[in-house]
């Protein structure tokens, strides 16, 4: 993982992996023209060097996607790891029989690490519609079925807004 400063910031570009080669080149040229050390005012060597380094990093689509991924990782989306060249002999722990039940305990963390806002909006829509159903047809057999359908919709569509469980 790179530990250099944000290369997008150095070029004044938005942090997006889908920038084009032309956009990156134009941003670098603009900064280079304004800060080059050969300018009569002496330029700005530090900024010129930073922009050049950032351009070297971002000039290919692969480099941009990597830089973007590194930024996302630095922001806390990625794992914190360090090289493990020293090798010991431990084996992965075996699966526990109550693993499925333990998975339920992960749900709050999965919500937090997923897209909680979208999930909340989805939940609010389902809850709102359920209230409307209860208001319109209270006590009818269709009411629990409709509410059950809304819960089913929430569960089926909300799964993708949760972070994956730890074993996936």
């Amino acid at each position, binding site marked *: 993982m790179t530990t250099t400063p944000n290369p997008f910031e150095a070029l004044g570009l938005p942090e997006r992996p*889908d920038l084009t080669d032309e956009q990156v080149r134009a941003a670098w040229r603009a900064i280079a023209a304004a800060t080059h*050390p050969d300018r009569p005012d002496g330029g700005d060597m530090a900024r010129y*060097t930073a922009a050049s380094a950032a351009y070297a990093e971002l000039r290919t689509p692969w480099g941009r996607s990597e830089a973007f991924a590194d930024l996302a990782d630095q922001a806390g989306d990625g*794992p914190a*790891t*360090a090289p493990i060249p020293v090798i*010991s002999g431990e084996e992965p722990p075996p*699966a526990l029989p109550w693993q499925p039940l333990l998975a339920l305990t992960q749900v709050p963390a999965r919500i937090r690490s997923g897209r909680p806002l979208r999930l909340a909006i989805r939940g609010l829509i389902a809850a709102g519609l359920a209230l409307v159903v209860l208001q319109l047809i209270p006590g009818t057999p269709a009411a629990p079925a409709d509410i*059950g359908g809304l819960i089913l919709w929430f569960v089926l569509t909300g799964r993708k807004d949760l972070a994956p469980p730890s074993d*996936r």
Partner: protein
Amino acid sequence: MSVWTWLKFVTFLWLLRKGFKLARWLLVAVAAVAAWPVTVVAGTGYAAAWLRGWPPVRLYRAAAWTLIVTAAWLAALEASDPGFLAARQPGRAWGMGWDQLTMAGLARTFALLAPVALPAGLALAGLIWAWRIYAVTTGLGGIRASAPIAFDRRQWRRQIRTAKGLAAAPGAVPLLARGGHIPIGGTIRAVGHRWHPVLTLPATACTRHMVIVGATGSGKTNLMIRLWAGWFTATTAAARAGRGDRPLLVVLDCKGGRDARRKADRTRRLLYGAGARRVAVWPDEARLCLWDIPPDDLAVLLYQMIDSGTGAAAYYADMLQAVITLAVTAPCGPPLSTQAFLDRLNATWLAGAWNDGRHLAEAEHARAAARHLPDIQLRYATLLRRLGPALDSPGRLDDADAWYCILEGTRERSVAEAQAMALTELAAYTATSLDGKPRAMLLAADDYSAVSGRVPLSNLYERGRSLGIGVQVSAQSWEGLGATEDERYRIAATADGGVFVLNTPHPEPLAALAGKRRVLETAHRIIGGAWGDEGTTREQRAWAADPDLVRRLDVGQACYIHRGAATFVQVARPRPSPLSLMPPPAPVAPVPGPPVVPVPGPRSEPASGPDPWPSLASLDDIFGPESPR
């Protein structure tokens, strides 16, 4: 029949035809209004499918899911009103609804009928959408003759948008799905394959042979890393459940360079998240021992590592092979290090080793080869010195869960080729070794064409097949798969784990593997400068994996070809579950023992551009050490 009578008859027929058509549309309109809750659901479903590029099967499945609601409703009705009188409820609710044509009344009727209207409406939407696709693609629907082209292009754009949205959702494309399947990304379009929102492959597909072809920057590495991490996760889960062996992933990054280190780091982070405990990056951090290979195989490998030529050089090649065999298979056992091997390429040593009275022929061969030994020793000393200590130190492949091996194929091709041969041989040895527990192995070669000069890819495949290890190979183009057209076809056609084609300028040979499908093509007759309603329809053959679509694939999009069908997919960037993050390992106390010789790292490229500011050391030169600044 007079002309006037004929004209009246023709007009009558025209009116009759139009009348029937009008009556039909009126009937449809009446039915749509009468069954308005179903119409509302069907219209919504149709619009969603049109806007999001869904196939009709998506609506059918949604209809099937809503049957749960219907079942719950029926159960509730039966509980409140026993005797199967529930069947009358929808009709009663519908009839009452016409007396309350207010917003609240309509909403109430809809809520009462929703358990029936939802499955019926969604199924109807699926049928109408399927008919629309059929009609437009066969040329029956649409206003202009170019309607099929415009329709397909529009739907393709929408399918990509939907697939991208799915690939970006955190929980939609994890590293491992249910049933040990590896999710790849959001499905853009399935041609011949069964459609699923997310394309998943069984982990066993990786244990066979897989080919990945894509130009630089097409997202090939992302796809490969996802496949590795998915396979590793699935195999680890199976091993923990007692259904298989522990995984061993060996990646050969054959291009090397700075990018390779970054890829290695990404792969390692993912594998740690997937449950790996030991991920070694070779040669930067970990080493292997070439001399662990069994003597006979070692002799063949050492012979192959030297480019001995053909024709007049065949004599020398034979001599070389004989000497290597004598040195490695000596009665005292194989050499255990580079130096020990080089010491054996000596007339005195060989004579002493074989002159035990039981190996007269070998002793004679050693004497005959004596005058060539200095040359051979010089060649091997040069080669093994260039290979460096990373293959000459204690270390076994099965010491780690995964090895990321970086070969500098673009910088030092001959060295990288020799290293690739050695690593492949070590993988084969690990796969067949009876020491320790067996491992489920996947050997992945990224950009193998960079080192395939002396080891054709097909050899790698065949070895993998015979040893029961999965082999995954990537190349930048069709031409990169092999030296000859015959070899390329051999590699691609035997990829029983499937072929992934990303953006590449010449996808036709790979697209041909998906075969063709039968389609209907309609030709319209042009009448008076306009498209008439007469024409012919005939059966045609169209590519299952359209090469033009493959050529237009964007970064991260791939076409998966398997068993005569194709699925276009938006590959999701592999990310481990945030819940599986591990803290950095605690520093390990140094273990007393022999000192470890540091492995020299790769040569770093000189930094471009001037130094922005004098370094700290140079400031010390000016102000003196520890001076306040």
